[in-house]
């Protein structure tokens, strides 16, 4: 007989009845603490949104997008952020045009073409992971030092779009790779077995299957670009501009930058306008995020 059993039997020849369900205060407190953590996080979200809506309530109307920013305190009432909205649309549209093809093509190379045992391909992967963590202001420095000055594109829409594209490129690549990886190998093999080339297989079989995943990643990446202000501070977006951009080389301002400018104005009316612009920005982001989540849930295939 083992010692453990001896001990047990010595204590309780007929086993004692099961104890009553115990109330463990520690357990309850712990659970409450956890719920509190989540609650605090969400409380801040709610407070933030409610505060912005409350503060910007009087300015949440057509003036916001029909009117231009003003430099006159006496005209704040009839001012809006139209040039910032159009500036944002220009910059984000261009960012999409640059970052999505580049990002998806990189992802295709890394998933479908690259031999991942090669050192340079592993380096490529490591590089992208690192790039994803580089602070956005550093991309601003890249834009300031290299693109605006050395290449000489100046403080223009195209400079901003290039910088934001490089900034979100890792996000696009990582999301696209995940989407490609989720496509089962058997589909590729079936395609090759029918005599398709690598590109035919990729373009006709793998890509269509990966599109929902890529779309989700693309939307999330663009929504990040949409809210980004730090690099653009270094790239001339802080300028007072009361007209819409009309070419790649236009000067511009964007919504987050306009908000940043408005926050700095001393009059309360400007603060209200800032809050209204924040609600608009959050609204756009919420729509984009919801779209991404809907696409993900709707098209998420279980292979």
């Amino acid at each position, binding site marked *: 007989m083992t010692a453990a059993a001896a001990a047990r039997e010595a204590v309780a020849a007929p086993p004692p009845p099961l104890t009553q369900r115990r109330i463990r205060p520690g357990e309850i407190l712990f659970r409450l603490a956890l719920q509190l953590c989540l609650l605090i996080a969400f409380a801040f979200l709610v407070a933030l949104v409610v505060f912005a809506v409350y503060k910007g309530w009087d300015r949440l109307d057509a003036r*916001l*997008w029909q009117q231009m920013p003003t430099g*006159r305190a*006496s005209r704040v009432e009839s001012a809006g952020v139209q040039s910032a909205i*159009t500036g944002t649309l220009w910059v984000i549209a261009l960012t999409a045009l640059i970052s999505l093809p580049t990002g998806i093509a990189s992802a295709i190379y890394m998933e479908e073409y690259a031999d991942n045992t090669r050192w340079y391909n592993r380096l490529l992967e490591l590089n992208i992971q690192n790039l994803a963590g580089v602070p956005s202001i550093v991309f601003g420095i890249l834009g300031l030092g290299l693109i605006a000055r050395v290449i000489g594109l100046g403080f223009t829409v195209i400079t901003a779009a290039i910088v934001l594209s490089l900034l979100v490129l890792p996000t696009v690549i990582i999301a696209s790779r995940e989407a490609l990886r989720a496509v089962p190998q058997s589909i590729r093999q079936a395609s090759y077995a029918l005599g398709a080339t690598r590109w035919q297989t990729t373009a006709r079989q793998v890509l269509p299957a990966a599109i929902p995943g890529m779309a989700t990643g693309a939307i999330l990446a663009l929504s990040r670009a949409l809210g980004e202000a730090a690099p653009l501070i270094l790239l001339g977006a802080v*300028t007072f501009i009361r007209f819409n951009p009309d070419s790649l080389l236009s000067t511009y301002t964007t919504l987050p930058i306009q908000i940043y400018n408005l926050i700095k104005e001393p009059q309360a009316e400007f603060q209200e306008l800032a809050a209204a612009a924040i609600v608009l920005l959050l609204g756009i982001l919420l729509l984009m995020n919801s779209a991404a989540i809907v696409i993900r849930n709707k098209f998420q295939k279980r292979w």
Partner: protein
Amino acid sequence: MIKTVRGRLTALTAALFLTAALTACGSDNPSTDSGGDTAEQLSGEVKVDGSSTVGPLSKAAADLYAEEQAKVNVTVGTSGTGGGFKKFCVGETDVSDASRPIKDSEKAECDAKGVKYAELIVANDALSVVVNKENTWAECLTVAQLKKIWEPKSKVTNWNQVDPSFPNEPMKLFGAGTDSGTFDYFTAEINGEEGASRTDYTPTEDDNVTVQGVTGSKGGLGYFGFTYYEENADKLKLVKVDGGGGCVEPSVATAQDGSYKPLSRPLFVYVSGASLAKPQVKDFIDFYIQNIDEVVKEAKYVPLTAEQKTTLAAEFAELQKS
């Protein structure tokens, strides 16, 4: 209530979708129901950059001008007086805002690049020293006292170090950021050397920070343009300054007649000669000068004196000729 809520939500939703339509509209600007005057429609860009103090004037001018010439795009940057001249002298900008006259070094740079320019005084300002409303002791400070507070390596951290009769109250300092002409001007006038200042204060390009900071601390002291004091007169207390001729409070009158010494100053706009060849720049400056009273009023600065206006008119006539 419900109706307005729904109205707003509809408006907001519409906004989200209309933003898309806006790009298509391009530079159409609904806010300006076009001047409709006989003036010919100009287009193109006017690039203004420079002092954040003068910025409001140029922004107001740009705003007013848009009602007349909707197709001319006036951009106003606020890189600071120094930053503005840097761009101006390499020909990147058409107009440079400045809260101090151009320096010799900057002149040399402009000359080197062959940039010719005209200097226009567009408004007056009185750098105002402000303290907390609860501050009962500092009614008037001499330039020497201000220097004691603000000079480089100043060890003043308490009001009683400025004057033993002042109470034992820790001092919190707020001032202009190093990019601004305000900083250049204040340091030059008070500390005797441009850019020479103690460094352990809260520097900001955002005068709101100074307003809030001084409001929030009993021992607070800050300085900024007279405009901002007027905007926040209910929150702050103005300090008189003794520049040798007794205590003077900054005001429109004392700024205009120059008796508020040494902190009253003119504000400048520099126009590039080459840029004046562009019709839209010429037209904008034309507009700026002709409407200077309204511009100054909108930006809430101290207007020009009659004498200054005459000078401006003369300068302008000179420009017309060249």
